[in-house]
Every structure is written in C-alpha cells, then in structure tokens.
C-alpha cells in the first residue's frame, strides 16, 4: 500500500508555471504520478505541457478532483497558498518551499491539526512511494520498490541513505522527507505511526540530526507503540557545540540535542543507531536478512 502518496493520488501543483515547479511537477508526472492541475493566480486557462492551469485551488479541485497539493510557491506566499488548498478541500499538502517564516508555520500547524489535514514540510524533499507516485523533488531513479519505510528531517541525506540501501539490494515502501524547519507539519512520530499501520512496510529507517528532541520523543514512541524494527541514523556527531545563547530551548526539551545524546536515548530504548549512512544501510540489511 505504501503511505501518503500512491495510485490514488491526484496531484495539483501550486506554482506549476514557475521554473522549479514546472521541472519537478513534470518529472513527477513522468514518473507516473497523476498530475491533474496547476494553480497560478492570473494564469487560469493556460496549460503546462497539457496540464490545465487554474486561478484558484477551488476552481482546480472542482474541475479535476485533485486530492493532493504540492507547493512550489515562493516563501512569502507559501503559507497563504496552503491555506487556500486546505479551504478548497485538499487533504494532503506537500510543501517543498524553503524559507517559510516560523511564526506563519505556528499558525498553519494549528490550522491543519484542527482540520485533520496532513501537511508534509515545508522545506522538505517530498514523498516518494517507489513504483506508485512521486510528489516532490526526490530523485526517484535511485530508489526501488520494497519494504523499508524511510523518514528523514534532511533532504539530501535521505537520498544518500536510500542510495546506500539500493546498493545493498533493499527497496522502499515510501520515503518521507518531513523537513528540518523548527515547525513542520508532520513529525517523526506521525510518520512512524503510518508506517506501523502500512502493510507493505516491514522495517523503518529514521534519519535524524542534531538539535531539538524529536528523535528522543520518537524513541519513546517506537518502544511503546511499534512492532516493526526501526534503525536510526543521526547526523552531526562531530559538529561543534552550537552558539545558542538562551536557556529556554534546553529547559523545554530536557535534552542537550547532541548526536551522542540522541544516540544514547535511542539505544536505551533498544533502537540500533548508525553513525554513517553506510553503516546505517548495513544495519538495515542485517535486519532484513533476519
């Protein structure tokens, strides 16, 4: 089945007429994703290689039954585009745009949660279910279909790990880049819960990095709620201590946020942690061999 995107995805791209939106939107279509509409205010009636453009998401949804929106709108306008998509009935929003202000994301997060809408990103590479659909900028050619779920805060690191898995003959159910911004629409736990419920997924790789305490929270969730094995990778073991001045962050999370602290928290819950992408892929392969 995979998660989040698949054969049932009817994709609408906000910003399809921009250069990035066009490049990746058409690439997603070439992969097999059903790209049904683009939205650019003022360009309604035009088309991008046969994909009809609408002025508003409401008009696009009415005409095409789109159910998933991918956002390539520039950062100052991205949140507004997402509110529009949600108001028009879109239930899954994937925001690729980088640089969306954090205070806008606070509001948007409260908005999507109150409405039960799924938001992936912003500042994320998107979601790829190999063999089914690709929504975002993940280079699909390096992944093959399989049973490993992959969830990551980092874009390019996701590709690296996926690539290493492929080299070892392993495939993926779905690859989800949740984005590394302070406030993103979906957390590790949100995605882990979906993988746990997904029939195709047999094991999961979680790719984290220094800062925050999302990995520590995920560790507790994995121990308490997951039956499927999870392997973790954390980037930043050799990063110098941050310059952060305030005490508030550390008080809230009760965590130092270093890679070593995260590794220890995960291992204390019985979760194996790789220190390089290569080692991580080997741990997964070991598990897959049983």
């Amino acid at each position, binding site marked *: 089945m995979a998660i989040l995107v698949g054969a049932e995805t009817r994709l609408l791209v906000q910003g399809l007429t921009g250069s*990035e939106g066009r490049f*990746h939107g058409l690439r997603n279509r070439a992969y097999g994703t059903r790209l049904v509409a683009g939205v650019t205010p003022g360009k309604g009636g035009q088309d991008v290689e046969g994909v009809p453009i609408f002025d508003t998401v409401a008009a696009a949804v009415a005409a095409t039954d789109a159910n998933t929106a991918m956002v390539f709108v520039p*950062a*100052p306008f991205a949140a507004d585009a997402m509110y529009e998509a949600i108001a028009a009935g879109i239930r899954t929003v994937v925001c690729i745009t*980088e*640089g*969306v*202000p*954090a*205070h806008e994301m*606070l*509001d948007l*997060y*409260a908005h999507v*949660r109150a409405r039960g809408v799924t938001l992936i990103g912003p*500042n994320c*590479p998107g979601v790829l279910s190999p063999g089914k659909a690709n929504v975002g*900028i*993940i*280079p699909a050619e*390096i992944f093959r279909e399989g049973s490993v779920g992959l969830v*990551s805060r*980092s*874009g*390019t*690191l*996701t*590709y*690296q790990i996926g*690539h290493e898995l492929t080299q070892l003959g392993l495939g993926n159910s779905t690859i989800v880049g949740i984005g*590394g911004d*302070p*406030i993103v629409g979906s957390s590790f736990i949100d995605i882990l819960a979906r993988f746990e419920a997904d029939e195709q997924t047999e094991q999961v790789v979680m*790719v984290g*990095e*220094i800062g*925050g*305490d*999302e990995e520590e929270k995920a560790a507790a969730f994995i121990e308490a709620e997951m039956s499927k094995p999870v392997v973790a990778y954390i*980037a*930043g*073991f*050799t*990063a*110098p201590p941050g*310059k*952060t*001045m*305030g*005490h*508030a*962050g*550390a*008080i*809230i*999370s009760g965590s130092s946020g270093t890679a070593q602290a995260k590794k220890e928290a995960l291992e204390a819950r019985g979760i194996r942690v790789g*220190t*390089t*992408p*290569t080692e991580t892929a080997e741990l997964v392969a070991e598990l897959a061999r049983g």
Partner: protein
Amino acid sequence: MDLYEFQGKELFRSFGIPVSEGRLATSPLEAREAATALGCPVVVKAQVLVGGRGKAGGIKLAATPAEAEERAREILGMDIRGHTVHRVWVERASEIAREYYLSITFDRSAKKPLFMFTTEGGVDIEEVAATKPDALVRLHVDPLEGYRPWQGRHLVYGAGVSDAAERRQIEEIVGRLYETFERCEAMLCEINPLVVTTDGDVRALDAKVTVDDNALFRQPEIAEMRDLAAADPLEALAREKGVTYVKLDGEVGVLGNGAGLTMATVDVVTFVGGRPANFCDLGGGGDAQGVVDALEVITSDPQVRAIFFNIFGGITRCDEVARGILQALEQLELELPIVVRLDGTNAAEGRRILEEAARPNVYAEATMLDGARRAVELAGAAS
C-alpha cells in the same frame, strides 16, 4: 539570527519593556565617556553572542568613569568561549532586590509559543528547571489566538509573586514581551535576570533575542542589525554570498548540499581520520554561481588543503554543479585538489561534464565514503 544584548534591549525599549539606560562603546575611552554621561556606578558588559559572560569576567562594575575605562580595557579584546569581544555595553548599575527569569520561546514539540517564568532567576536557570520544577511556571500560548491577559496573571500568581505593584509591572512586561516576540518574529525572547530594584521597579537586566532568519525579509530594522553581528570576516563573506558556512579547525574543506548531508559529510571526513576545515551547505538551489561563491568562501580559509564536494542532487542539479566547479576553477584560479562525488538529479550528465573537462586537480569518486577518504589523503599529501 541572534541579537547582542544591546540590540535586544533596544528592541525591548521600543516595545515598552523597561531596561536600564546605557551606551555602546568600542574603546576604553568611549566607555569612560559613556560612564560620565550616564552617571556612575555603571556596569561594563562584554557584547558577545555566547552565554557565561559573567563567569568569564566579561561583566564588571565600575564606581567612576576612570574605573569604567579600565574595566573596558580589560574586557575589550577578551576571548570568551571562542568569541572575541569587540564592543562593551556600559549601563547604569541597578540596586537589585530580587532576580527573576522570564522567557517566551518556540516549544517545537507542542508547536506553540511557551512562556516560562520563575522567581528563582539570575542563577543557573537550567539547574532550577531540573531541581525545582515547580518553581518554574510554564504556559503555552495558542498561536492563532495570541496572548491574553489572564496568562500574565497565571505566571505571576503561579510563581508566587507576592507584591501587588510588582505583579502589575510583570504582567505588563509579559504582555509586551509577547508583542515583541510576535511582531519581530522571534524564536526566543529571554530576560535573565528580570530584576526588581530596591525601589520596587521591575526591569530587564539582560536580553537574549533570536529572530527567525526566514522572516528577516519583512523585518528590515532587525535585518539591519545583522551587519553589526558579523564578527568573523569569513562568515561575513559567506553571508554576503548567501552561503551557509561555519568555520571549523581542520584542513579538509567540506561542501555539501543540504544541512543533513553536509553534517554527515563532516562526520565521515572525521571518522576516516581527517579534520574538516568547515561546514559549508550549498543550500536548496545551487546554480553554477552558487558553487563559485561557495568555493570562494571555502578557499578564503588558508588552512584548507583539499576540498570534498559531496552532492546528492534533488532540487539541485548535478550538471549545474559540475558547470559551477569548472567556472570556479577558472575565475578563482584554484589549484587545490577537489574531490567530487555526484549522485541524484542529472548526475550522469554532471559526471560527463567533469570528465570531458579533464582538469588535473579534480578527482571524481563514486561514493561518499571513498570521496571522504580520497580528500583526507590528498589533504595529508598537500600539508
């Protein structure tokens, strides 16, 4: 973007949060003049973007203008946890009766702003949080609804502030701090300590403000403060070029795309025995000019002996990166060995471009691990 104490206080003052009067000084003489103008006693405070100034001797009292000059001479040029002091803030000293702690910040887990307040301020606040959790009152604000006055009352009564006049002042400050936080799109506004003077006045004795970089495009006054904040010349160059760059202390220049991959590359370079010279993230786009700019920044560090270029294309296209490398070699006349590993979007095309150019100091590697090994090896040979 972190603000210096004096910048944070300027912001606080503009939002009506009481702070002591003070002046910035970049020389001992300026500090003396400031002390004369303000009236003694004054406090001379190092302006650095790092905690623990007090313990490091970066905050000193002066009873006379001459003493202020002397203290400033001691503090200016000091190194505090790797940060050189270029400026001091001279401010009228307060007679302190009590020290509290107040902050508003992003709670990333709850995805809401969080107020924290305690009457046990001044000292190590993380210690208070760990040992006396009940003394620290925490309260989330619903971001869509914003601040409401009962929340200020909840904090002051919850923390047990017993004096009515003090409560009134703190409630007012709490509301204004939220306004500062929201209007300036801050990630953190922290007052530690928030002091009560012997006259019963409440004011911010320190100011730690972090503003969302993504919001600076519509915060021109705060963005202007940034220029002042760039102390390191290399980091200033990086900012000018729009490159994310952190100076480290080794010989292998590291350039990746995306913070995660770049961090992992720094890790791998270390694990195979090298010492990374920097963390440099090409970022999301990465056109040819971006590559040139990044290489210019990296190679401005004279410690660099070899460069490892680790690219996994997504939105970044490997052919563009390859073109950028060739362009940089010409424009910057680079002769350092550059190890390049390309994968992902248009990787085949990128590898072909480099192969056809056949530059003697460009080394292609197929994997991240091999690339790191080769770069470390080349850096060792070069030094």
